[in-house]
Structures are given as structure tokens and as C-alpha cells.
């Protein structure tokens, strides 16, 4: 009886030592499978958002009636495959952290106030202020102005000074450059501040 128990425990310990022989820092086939599983996991997270996305797309036209700029879902950009390999090699804490970052993102962004100011001969849009979600890129404001003014190009500046890169988030710009809780966007048909 004791022999059987012993051999069982032997077997147990040998299998443990076998698995620990496998070098941990090598990328094996199993790693790749795990990575795919993880990718699928993330995709499913996105999948849950799908119906929401479609709803917002149907009302995606930039409309202004109450100065509330309606916009599409902000697109997300996936990392290259070989970079996301690391997701399968995170520590448990690292794994928990990235899941937390993802879940945080699904919370609703805040609405911010934007004030449009015309420069030169271009007409002033009305209403002068608008609201936009903080996660939107600056390009949405440019598109909004172009539609309102029915022009092909418009030059936009923050605080009569610089024109930000179109991909930059309105939220970041607002945090840096707001004046009395409004981001002031100056616009012009030609180049005003070269």
C-alpha cells in the first residue's frame, strides 16, 4: 500500500519536474495557440460593443441642432502581431493590469465644450459653442466646420496659435489649452498662422 502511494507520488513529482524542464522563455507552438486564444478573447470584448457601434453609425452624420456634435465611434488601431505576442508572457499582475486598462476604456467619455471663432472673411458658425466627446480626434472638428460652412478646406487653430495634428484627441487638447473650460478653435479659409 505504501509502495503504491510512493509510486504515485513519484509519478506526480516526475511529471512536475518534466514540465519544469521545458524552458519558459521560448516561444512554442502552445504559446502561439495561447496567443490566438487571447486575441479571440480581446475580439470578443470588441464584439460586445458591435451593436452600440452600429447604432451610433446610423446617427453618425455631423449634426449640430443643439450644438452637440454627434460622431462615429473612435476607431482603434491594433498592434502588430509580433508585438502582441507579449500578451501571453505577462506576469499575472501584468495580465490583470491590461484587462483593467481595457475595461476602463469602455466607460463613457465626457463631453467637452468647444468655442468656434472665425478669422477674417469667413462667416461665424452658429451656435458658436458645441459639445463633443473627449475621445474624438481633432479632425472631427475640421470635418464639422467644413460641412457647416460648405467649403472644401478650412484651416483650424487652437488659441490663435497652432494647428494640432488631426489625430490628436480633443480631450488632450482641451486639458492643455482650455480657456474658461472651453477649447477655442479659430478657423479661417486661408492660412492665418503659418
Amino acid at each position, binding site marked *: 500500500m505504501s509502495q503504491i502511494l510512493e509510486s504515485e507520488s513519484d509519478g506526480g513529482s516526475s511529471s512536475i519536474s518534466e514540465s519544469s524542464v521545458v524552458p519558459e522563455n521560448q516561444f512554442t507552438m502552445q504559446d502561439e495557440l495561447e496567443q490566438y486564444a487571447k486575441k479571440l478573447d480581446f475580439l470578443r470584448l470588441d464584439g460586445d460593443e458591435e451593436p452600440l457601434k452600429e447604432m451610433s453609425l446610423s446617427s453618425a452624420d455631423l449634426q449640430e441642432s443643439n450644438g452637440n456634435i454627434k460622431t462615429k465611434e473612435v476607431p*482603434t488601431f491594433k498592434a502588430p502581431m509580433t*508585438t502582441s505576442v507579449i500578451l501571453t508572457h505577462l506576469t499575472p499582475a501584468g495580465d490583470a493590469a491590461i484587462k483593467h486598462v481595457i475595461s476602463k476604456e469602455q466607460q463613457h467619455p465626457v463631453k467637452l465644450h468647444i468655442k468656434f471663432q472665425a478669422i477674417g472673411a469667413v462667416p461665424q458658425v452658429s451656435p458658436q459653442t458645441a459639445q463633443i466627446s473627449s475621445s474624438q480626434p481633432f479632425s472631427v472638428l475640421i470635418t464639422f466646420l467644413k460641412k457647416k460652412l460648405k467649403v472644401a478646406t478650412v484651416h483650424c487653430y487652437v488659441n490663435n496659435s497652432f494647428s494640432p495634428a488631426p489625430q490628436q484627441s480633443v480631450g488632450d487638447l482641451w486639458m492643455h*489649452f482650455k480657456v474658461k473650460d472651453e477649447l477655442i478653435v479659430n478657423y479661417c479659409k486661408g492660412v492665418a498662422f503659418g
Partner: protein
Amino acid sequence: MSELQRLVWAGKLNLQIQLDPHLVLSDFKGSDEGPMHLLTVNIQVPRDSYLVLFLPHIVQKLERQLRMNLNDYYQGWWFEMENVCIPWNFPIGAVYDSLTGLNPQTRASNFERDRLNVWKLNLRHGKQPPSGFLPIHNGLEQIRELWMHQWKQACFVLNGNSKVVMSFSKPDTLSFWNSVLHRDLDSFTSIRQKILPAKNAAKSIPVRIHLALPDVRLVEPVCNAHDNQRELELQDLLAREFPEWFAIRENSLNLAMPVVQGIKVPINIPLWTLHQQLSSFDGFLHISLCLIAENDTE
């Protein structure tokens, strides 16, 4: 100017750029005589520069193999890494550090066969660039304008307004841009110094944080140079913006590492010092956040 600044300014990336096969004349595709070298460009570019500045050089080398005629070396082109589009309006070194995760162990296993670290990119062309990519329609002039506005923005963050840059004389503006094109650090630094405020006069510090995971994105946090008369350190900023990855105080393990100009930087350095030494040619301090894998922490 410190030795560090000279080294950083001289930092280079090795690129292997492969032309999209759809753009190649069928004569070149068919032959077995290894036409690959005709469709590939190996190039070394400065880390602290825009990759698109080298488009004319790269495209000219491939021009004979192209199936279309070109009249613009900038318009319609973009670079990709594994089908992920490379934004052109950030220093290419910062994009490399975040997109490749600058994780020495992972990188070693990926590039074992190569003696050098080579970043493999694909060159594509089309009427409709991928979403999120800023189309280039006005060539070098557009790149210069964007860069100038980046400086104005950085100047606004540092000084509370863009007056210094906006009142630059024409020759100063020109020689500033030329110093970037011709990689002339002395002339670059002499103009950059006019924009930077005195040590304790900086309002806030222009910082951009690049992330690749969980998705590719840019964060531009507000970093006041001082917090209650104490200089703001990198770890204060990281713990505030990314509490998931960075512990508030030392001695506990962080789950990501900040990389600036390809250097893993210690987190207890004041941000102002980091900006002085390692900020990029567009006036911003670009920090790439790289996650730490399990086997790195051992």
C-alpha cells in the same frame, strides 16, 4: 550641449523596406533570378526624424520596377509593419520603440538570424490611405508646416503661448527646418534654445506617450513642471496616468517600462531634465511604454 544629446541626435535605425508586390511590373515578378533585391531597399535613417522625409530616396530606388508613373514622391505612399500602418507625423524612433515593444528578449528571439537589428517594413501606395493616416497632398511643404505647428504647440505648453516661435524671423524659421533636413545639431540647438524657457520658468512640459497595447494610441498628458514646488518626476506622471502599470513609490515592481529615444530610462528623473536631454526634434518628449514580459522580471 551634452554628449548625450549628440549621441541621441546621431541615433539610427536599420530598415528593410519591401515594396508591395501589387505595385510591381509583372516582368520583375516572374523571374526566378531572385528579383527580391530589386524590390527591397535597405536604409539607415535617423531615429529622431520623420520617416517620410526619406520617401523620395526610397521610391527613386524602386521607381524602375513600378507599374505606374510617378509625379509625386510623397503623395499616396505609406509604410506598414505587419499590416499596421506607421504614422508619419511622429519621430520614427518613438514609433519603433512602441510598435516593436522594445523588449530585448522578445526582440532577440525574433531577430536571431540577423546580425543587426533590422526593422522590416512594407511600402504601399494607393488613393485611399488607411484610416487614421494623415494623407500627404503637399509634399515636403506639408511636412514642414506640420512640424512647425508641432513646435508652436510645444512652445505653448512650455511658455503658456506660442509667441517665441510665431515671432521667429524668416531666416531663423528656414535654418531651423534646414537643420532638421541636414542633420545639423549645432544650428538646431541654437534655435531650440530660444524656445525653451529658463529652468524654473517652464509652465508645463510637452510630453507624448506612445502605447501599442492593448491598442496603438497616443496620450498627451498635462505635466506641470512643478508640483507643490517639487519637480515632477517621470514616475509621478506614469503613476498618475497609468496606475495599472506603475506603482506610486519605488520598491514595488512596475509592469511596464518607459523608453525614450531607444533608451530604457530610470523613472526617478525630473521630467524637465528628461525633456532637456532627450526631447525630440519636434519639441516634445516622446515616451514609448513597453510592457514587461514574465521572463524579463527574473
